[in-house]
């Protein structure tokens, strides 16, 4: 395997990282909205949120991607396949992140919420200034895990024709007849990125541990 092939794989890895980062960020915003709906205590908000989480955690990501990829054009939204891929990944990770956050929100001490109310914070202020920061700190390890999962899952967007690390490896393997070194290199690149995310997560955890609740 030549140096040039490895460079191509590294370039493709950049799009893998980009797709994953954007999806995790969008997914996080949706997850916070889902958590707000769940904590609202009103069935009109919490029931759809529960169905959403259950559906996106219950259906394989590959099937979700195929569904979104065919559904968007069918309802008249002709978006590029990269958008469909990011929408699919974001919705999926939103469901998992919401489920992780649920545990975090449940562990926010009651006294803090009551104190916030007594101090005169509105429910919205209590949510964004008290509950979210504390829940986030409590679920950080789970969120880092989820980031690693999404990075690995992003390999599936190759199925809808996005050129990222897996698709690039597949194309190179079939044009050079060198599947073993190419897939091993691709695997190695994934492994390195995952390890870096895990390291960053551990660093962030240690930073946050200094300020206790």
């Amino acid at each position, binding site marked *: 395997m030549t140096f040039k092939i490895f460079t191509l794989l590294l370039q493709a890895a950049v799009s893998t990282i980009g797709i994953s980062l954007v999806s995790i960020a969008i997914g996080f915003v949706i997850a916070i909205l889902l958590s707000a709906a769940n904590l609202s205590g009103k069935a009109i908000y919490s029931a759809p949120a529960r169905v959403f989480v259950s559906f996106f955690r219950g*259906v394989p990501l590959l099937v979700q991607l195929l569904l979104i990829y065919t559904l968007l054009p069918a309802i008249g939204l002709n978006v590029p396949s990269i958008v469909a891929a990011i929408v699919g990944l974001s919705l999926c990770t939103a469901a998992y992140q919401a489920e992780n956050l649920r545990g975090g929100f449940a562990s926010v001490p009651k006294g803090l919420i009551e104190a916030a109310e007594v101090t005169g914070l509105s429910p919205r202020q209590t949510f964004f200034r008290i509950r979210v920061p504390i829940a986030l700190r409590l679920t950080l390890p789970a969120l880092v895990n989820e980031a690693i999962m999404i990075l690995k899952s992003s390999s599936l967007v190759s199925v809808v024709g996005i050129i990222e690390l897996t698709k690039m490896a597949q194309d190179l393997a079939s044009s050079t007849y060198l599947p073993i070194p190419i897939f091993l290199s691709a695997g190695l690149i994934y492994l390195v990125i995952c390890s870096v995310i895990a390291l960053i997560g551990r660093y962030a955890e240690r930073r946050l541990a200094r300020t206790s609740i």
Partner: protein
Amino acid sequence: MIFNPEVIIEKLPELANGLLVTILLWVAGIAGGVVLGFLVATARRFGGFVTNAVLGSIVEVLRGTPFLIQIFLLYYGGPFVGLMLDPIPCGLIGLMVYSAACYSEIFRAGFGAVPAGHVEAAGCLGMTRLQTIRRIQIPEMAVIVLPPAVNLSVILLKESAVLSIITVPELTATVSAIGSQQYAYLEAIFILAVVYWVLVELTDRIGRLAEYRLSRLRFSKA
């Protein structure tokens, strides 16, 4: 937009075939993964430093790379080292190896969670090491590992959909083929999603029931 699921319902026997392949692969993947994973976890715990380090790095690699890459390596790379596999055996082996790596981590955590006092107490009572493993560590571990093991089983069911990419004739491959034939791709994928959803929810419920039954046997955390 026309939504017409009847054209898919007509092909119910084919769909059932795909479902059967998925369930067989899934169950075999779990069974193989649990047995292999247990052996790996036991070897890592009792097999000395070198065994632990070697198996540990293999597990890390399998857990740190996408399942799809592993499958591609086995399916497209295999023939270059004399390993010609049809899609189904290739998918089965891939699924088993991947699940073994994941289950081994669950079992390892399980071994770690058995209180040292229980093991010492067994030793004081004159149990041999094998007896302690068989009569104390494994039963106590079973209660601890059940929730994460159920969780992993659900993940494996969903991972098995990936095998459609190397043309294993399981549920996803079968239903998307029906969809293309019938010019009803969206309907097909929609039904596919619902079938997986029901399967996952069902597994989850059964798992929670088993957890509840077993939780009565849970030892006190001392």
